[in-house]
């Protein structure tokens, strides 16, 4: 799952898709944690997943707000077009 998410992140140029791939990656990481916690029969895995979840929520909200701003400024969602570096 993580690899899929990574692939999606690298391939797609639409900003929304980039964020979605990011979510997938986070989810995959959390999945790994929970499975590990279940394997050792400890609650830590789930707790970490909880934190990951909270972080993902915060990140998504801020990220989407940024997406809105960027869309205003650049009038497109192309990640490559938003590079302002010259040379």
């Amino acid at each position, binding site marked *: 799952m993580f690899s899929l998410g*990574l692939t999606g*992140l*690298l*391939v797609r*140029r639409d900003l929304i898709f*980039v964020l979605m791939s990011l979510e997938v990656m986070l989810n995959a990481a959390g999945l790994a944690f929970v499975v590990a916690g279940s394997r050792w029969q400890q609650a830590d895995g789930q707790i970490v997943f909880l934190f990951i979840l909270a972080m993902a929520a915060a990140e998504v909200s801020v990220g989407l707000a940024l997406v809105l701003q960027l869309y205003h400024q650049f009038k497109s969602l192309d*990640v*490559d077009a*938003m*590079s*302002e*570096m010259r*040379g």
Partner: protein
Amino acid sequence: MAWLWLIVMLPLMSALVLAVLGTHFSRRVVAAVGVGSIGLSSVITMLAAIEFVSAPPVGRAYTQVLWTWINVGSFQPHIGFYLDPLSLVMILVVTFVGFWIHLYSAEFMMHDEGYSRFFAYMNLFVASMLTLLLADNLVVLYLGWEGVGLCSYLLIGFWYRDPMNGLAARKAFIVTRVGDTAMLLGLFLLFTSLGTMQIQDLMRRATEDWTVGSTLAVTAALLLLGGAVGKSAQLPLQVWLPDAMAGPTPTSALIHAATMVTAGVYLVARTHALFELAPAAQFVVAVTGAATLILAGCSALTQHDIKRALAYSTVSQIGYMFLALGVGAWSAAIFHFVTHAFFKALLFLGAGVIIEALRDEHNIFRMGGLSKQLPVAFWTFLIAGCSLAGLPFLTAGVYSKDLIIWSAWAAAQGHPAFWIAGVIGALLTSLYTFRLIFRVFFGPIQTPVTKRPGYVMTVPLVILAFFATIGGWVKEPLILLLQSTLPMTIETEAAGMTETFSEVVVALVFLSGLYLAYLFHLEKRELAEGALRNPVARMIHAWWFADWGFDWLYDRVLVQPILWVAQVNKNDFIDAVYTGIARLTEAMYRSLRLTQTGLVRWYAAGIAAGSVVFLAMVVFP
């Protein structure tokens, strides 16, 4: 004689004063200071001479030590002056002739800028020359040596606004530098092997420690000869003197005729003991002198610039002096120096008058008929020319020249070949001298005279002419005087020739030169032009005109390669290390810059790749 140091100090102080404050004085004051210092020096010298002759000091030499200059271990040269007949004669001539030349230049340079600068340089030159002549040890001598070299450079390039003058000055300095380096090596050699720099001590130790013909002696003598050759413009370092005529005429008169160029002669005469220990070196001296005098005579015959002709004449006459030194006729060389100083300075000053009068015309083929226009210049020039060429009985030059030519045959190291060279040289001298005189003073007037010289310029001419005439009568007293310092010329049995015979030959040669010059340059001038139509003659003429190709040779062999090396080395290979570092950094920068694309996905890919690598490192150690 306790005032010996004043002789050197007066011109030196005057030079300093003029250098620092000269521009604030009026021209009169500057002239008074500049000329007066030399005059005072001359007076003191004459007083010292009188005292020396009437009440000679112990050992016929007077030493005055001022202070210790350097004190390093066993090397302790002091500033000391040494007065013996040799140096006495030389400083007499230098100060006396120098005084009249300074007086002349007071008017000659009146309309040039840098009046005080000129006198400062000239005085500094005289001070250095006197230091050289009066030096007690070789270090002080070298000090004076360098000083005169410096002043020569400054004075040749006096009119610095013209870059050609600067080039000529640099050429003079560099060529004499070559000689100076040889001399310095000689000084090092002498010090390390004999342990002292004091000239008299040195000579004594050398005769004690070294056998005749030992390698050390020959090497040291040859090295010192190298320095002498450079300063006196002999073969192979004679190339600078003709170009040095770019300086003002009084400079040419003082430095390059009468005094500085004879420093080499003085050096060899001073260290005569060394040369006597190295017959091979002495032979080289003689050969150098003989070759130079013929070579320069031929070149003088083809020149059309009056000053250049006189310059080559100087080279030739110093060749005579070297020839005399080389065959062991020490006093004859000094005698010739004395007479030469007078008539050569006179020739140059006369040339200066002519050049000024014709408004800076140097080409003798554009002069003519000045005998009526500039009478004083004409008569004095004529007297000096006859002295140079060797008019029998009446002039001073003939006595010294005869003595040298006779010694070339009769002295212990003499050789008939030297005698023949001397005679040929006399012929050439007569030829070119009268060529000059006939071209400049006779014939139709081509360039009109616009300026007549004033008294300040003509009086020195007359005085010098007087001495150029009577100078020959001091021959016997002079040689007697010099006997205490310079060894007598050993005269072997001259096979088949007496002195009179030699003198007659020289006189005949003089007359034939006179006649030929008269023919080619006065009566039938078409002959001269006709001779040049022959291509062979033209080639020889061009070759002699270019100083027998020495300039060309040095250019090809020395100057061009050095310039090429400098050009190649402009892209310094050492610099390449530093630029290489810079370029490496730049390359790294450029390659790193490619990673800063601003594309988010590239960065993410970078992170992914990095994590792959790290994982690999952990998983597969």
